[in-house]
């Protein structure tokens, strides 16, 4: 990890100039996290501007969820800091909307989709929400925005994965955040449902000038929508446009071993390249990690 600074340069100096960084809604600056003696994140830096759609790409265990938890303030960084709208993040931050990774709701849960969306308005407040016309209208508007009116009165636990994602996105958006974080929202969706969710998020980002940061282990589903990519491997990150980051030299440096980036029928594949024997042993160890971020393993 001698070249951590170098990655900082890749991250900061990438697509955006200093002008964009000053108006960044989210700046992650040199964040390192150690958990029980293991370094999970090392000197991660990147910035996200309002209205930008950013993909946080990396294999399972690369550190994506930890990074999101640091941004949310649920995990503190050992080194570095996170700025939201130019200020250090405070504990209760209404700027961020969050959609968690695993969402398993009991089908018996007496909660309609519209109830969960309504909870997004003020769930941190004490007391029982008083029904009002303004409240109902706001929920209705949000349900419409994510195209969830059809199943608004169904129990959330009975909805399909894609429908639940829409409801969770509405829940997160109704508090009018400036940054929307989604942890692996496409993980349990089929291809079509995944595309619909991505299109929805891209539209929201563009129309409402909300920055969307979405983690995924597979980048292809996000390629049509992504303005910026933060590629994370082994706890280190490179950021910029996909053209700047998804390149053999940048990713090889990140992985610390040679990888190839292939374009196959418009899909990007990141595969362990043929290097010398020492590289091979490295890749053998991380072989799966290297294969997965680009796409599913092609056989």
């Amino acid at each position, binding site marked *: 990890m001698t070249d951590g600074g170098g990655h900082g340069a890749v991250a900061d100096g990438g697509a955006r100039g200093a002008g964009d960084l000053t108006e960044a809604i989210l700046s992650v600056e040199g964040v390192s996290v150690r958990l029980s003696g293991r370094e999970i994140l090392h000197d991660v830096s990147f910035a996200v501007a309002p209205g930008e759609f950013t993909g946080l790409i990396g294999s399972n265990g690369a550190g994506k969820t930890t990074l999101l938890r640091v941004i*949310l303030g*649920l995990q503190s960084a050992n080194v570095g800091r996170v700025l939201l709208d130019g200020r250090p993040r405070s*504990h*209760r*931050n209404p700027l*961020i909307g*969050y959609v*968690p990774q695993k*969402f398993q*709701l*009991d089908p*018996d*849960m*007496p*909660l*309609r989709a519209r*109830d*969960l969306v309504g*909870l997004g308005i*003020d*769930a*941190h*407040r*004490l*007391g*029982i*929400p008083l029904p009002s016309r303004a409240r109902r209208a706001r929920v209705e508007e949000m349900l419409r925005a994510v195209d969830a009116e059809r199943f608004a*009165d*169904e*129990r959330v636990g009975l909805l399909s994965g894609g429908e639940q994602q829409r409801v969770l996105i509405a*829940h997160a958006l109704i*508090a009018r955040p400036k940054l929307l974080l989604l942890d692996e929202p496409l993980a349990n969706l089929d291809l079509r449902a995944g595309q619909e969710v991505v299109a929805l998020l891209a539209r929201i980002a563009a129309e409402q000038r909300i920055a969307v940061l979405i983690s995924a282990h597979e980048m292809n589903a996000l390629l049509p929508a992504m303005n910026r990519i933060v590629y994370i491997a082994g706890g280190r990150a490179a950021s910029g446009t996909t053209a700047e980051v998804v390149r053999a030299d940048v990713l090889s440096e990140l992985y610390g071993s040679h990888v190839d980036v292939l374009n196959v029928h418009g899909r990007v594949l990141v595969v362990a390249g043929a290097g010398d024997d020492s590289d091979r042993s490295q890749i053998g160890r991380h072989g799966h990690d290297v294969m997965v971020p680009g796409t599913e393993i092609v056989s």
Partner: protein
Amino acid sequence: MSAAVHGALGALLSPVIEPGFFAAEDVRVAIAVGAVVAIVSGTVGVFTVLRGQSFAGEALGDLNTTGGSAAYLVGVGPLWGFVAAGVVAAAAMELIGVQRPRGRDLATGIVLGTGLGLAALLLYLVTTLRNITGATVTILFGSVFAVPSSTIPLVVLLGLAVLAIVATLYRPLLLSSVSAEMAAARGVPVRLIGAAYLLALALAVALASLTIGTILSTALLVGPAATALRLSRRPGVAVALAAAIGIAAMWLGELFAYDSFYWPPAGTGWPVSFFVVTMIFLAYLLSGLPALLRRRAGIA
């Protein structure tokens, strides 16, 4: 109500309602206490089921046995013992780690084992030292007819306190029951909310223990709530429904128990808790009917 309706109702109910049902004071107390306790249990029960903490509720009930027998030994009302034991047990569970998903059952189990061991000793002491032989059955299985009218103010006060806690916590409690992670991301102090809820649970279970006994208290907590959750799609409606089902089960149980004074074998009346729990169970079975019928109709 018109006289005609009154007469018809009387004719309909005369086989089950003994004349003078509402005249007896212990019946009136039982009706009042039963209603308050059913409302509180139903309300808290909905969240208990949602949070998957039924086992914690069961353990708190069982541990009330320790408090109840201690109260008998000291010579104060059992409700004081139930409340004290419940609060202490809830605090112990919280400290050991009832909030951690995996620590939940473990913490509950450890506290439960220790407390029940103590209960064995206390019940032995109550029967030998104080020579109260019926104490064990009364503590374990309760009798709402044995509640003295002087307890009503305390019951109402505790009931209001529990309802106030749940009403205050409502939104963050609901969200953290849906997803602790989402709640934490919104800045909800999830652990604090969980601890306050556990206190409400302990008080609700103490009230249930007073009416239908420590062992059976879970039935009143979980049964009406589980039934209501089957029938409702909205949290507020589920709470109201659970309370209503609890009240209905309680009152019907009291009615049957009153009638059973003339039933064989002894002519002393069957345990009221038996009837209450039976009503709760029947309600749960009935609530499954609509889904069953729908499935049948779907097949046909």
